[in-house]
Each structure stands twice: as structure tokens, then as C-alpha cells.
């Protein structure tokens, strides 16, 4: 059955290194969300895209984070340079917004667990 995939599932890196996380949304879903989950902050929205265009990235630290959708089947989240405080689980979700907003579930991927040493 269709599902959101994320790679890698786990990433351990050293402070200062670049990290790239990838997400493949469900085929046909034109809205993609990036969330970050930590014990302290809970689940936070970082950015979301519709039809590959960023609609809102206000939750994302602009100086080191960037999110893109090079095509409809791939979304990326990059951190450069990474810092220990970026350690978290990063979730991608996709969905299909309806004109009348009645169909609005987001389908979440399994997440990328990032550890920055």
C-alpha cells in the first residue's frame, strides 16, 4: 500500500557537517510537510510545500536549514552546518488538500532520527 518513505532512517554525524534528509511523498500527493520532534519541543512544523512551491517555512531556522522539492517525488531537508541542538526525529508528511478542505489527513513517514555529536 502507498506510504511516505524517508531516508536515511538514522543518521549520526559530527557538528559542522552537512546533513541531507530525503522524503518521497505518496504518489499524487501535492502537499509535503516537514516536522521535527524533540522531547523538549514536541512536534513542530518546519516547512510545507504545495505543488513543489514553499508555502510556509517560518518554523525553520533560515541560516542553516533549507528545504526543497526538486521534483514531485522528492523532498529534501538540509542542515548546514549541523549543531548538537538539531538532534531530533525529522518527519515528512504528505497529503492532498481539497478545495473545500474536507480531505485533510496527513500521511507521515517513519522519520529520520538525527544525532549530531
Amino acid at each position, binding site marked *: 500500500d502507498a506510504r511516505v518513505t524517508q531516508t536515511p532512517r538514522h543518521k549520526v554525524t559530527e557538528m559542522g557537517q552537512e546533513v541531507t534528509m530525503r522524503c518521497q511523498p505518496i504518489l499524487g500527493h501535492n502537499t509535503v510537510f516537514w516536522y521535527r520532534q524533540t522531547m523538549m519541543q514536541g*512536534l513542530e512544523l518546519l516547512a510545507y510545500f*504545495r505543488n513543489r512551491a514553499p508555502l*510556509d517555512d517560518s518554523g525553520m531556522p533560515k541560516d542553516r536549514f533549507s528545504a526543497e522539492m526538486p521534483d514531485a517525488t522528492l523532498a529534501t531537508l538540509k542542515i548546514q552546518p549541523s549543531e548538537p541542538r538539531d538532534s531530533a526525529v525529522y518527519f515528512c*508528511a504528505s497529503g492532498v488538500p481539497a478545495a473545500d478542505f474536507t480531505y485533510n489527513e496527513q500521511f507521515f513517514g517513519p522519520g529520520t532520527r538525527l544525532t549530531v555529536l
Partner: protein
Amino acid sequence: AQSVAQPEDQVNVAEGNPLTVKCTYSVSGNPYLFWYVQYPNRGLQFLLKYITGDNLVKGSYGFEAEFNKSQTSFHLKKPSALVSDSALYFCAVRLQSRRALTFGSGTRLQVQP
């Protein structure tokens, strides 16, 4: 600004007993309300949503939720808990004018055998 609160960090219930996980929200317009569940080392899974209509919404795995506009609440319920229901539950709210969800802090449900 929209927000959602889950006042309990953890709920403990014995298997077979009814369970309630609480959620209250604060929005300026008509809310769309959701419940998601997260099992260990997994992503969030959609349980149910309230958009409009009947205040009692039925969802996956026997869960239901009651929308109460006067109390601005959307509590999750199940008549008979299973050990396999043990997980982290998130309430979320979305305004008609926005795409993204605002999540609560999550409530860990522990069902004891």
C-alpha cells in the same frame, strides 16, 4: 494564534476499561480537529478527524472522539482499552485558512494487562 493543549502527559488504564485522552483547543475560527497515534519508532498515524456534522466522530481501531464546541474540547475515547493501544497520542488542530496542523504535546497512554 491557534493552539491545542493536552493536559495529561500520561494516562494509565487497565485493559478492558474505558479510556479518555483529553484535548482542548483555542482557535479564532472554525477548527478542524484530528487525533494521531504514534507507536515506538514509527511515524504518526491518522486516527480520526472532525470537520463538521455529528459531534461524535468514529475512527480507526475502535476509537472515537467527541467535539464539544462550548468547552472547546475534542477528547479521544474508547469503550474498552487494549494493551496494544499503548502509544503516544497527539491531538491537532487546523484552521480552514491554513494547511499545516498545530499539534499538542502528546499524551502517553499506558494500558496495563
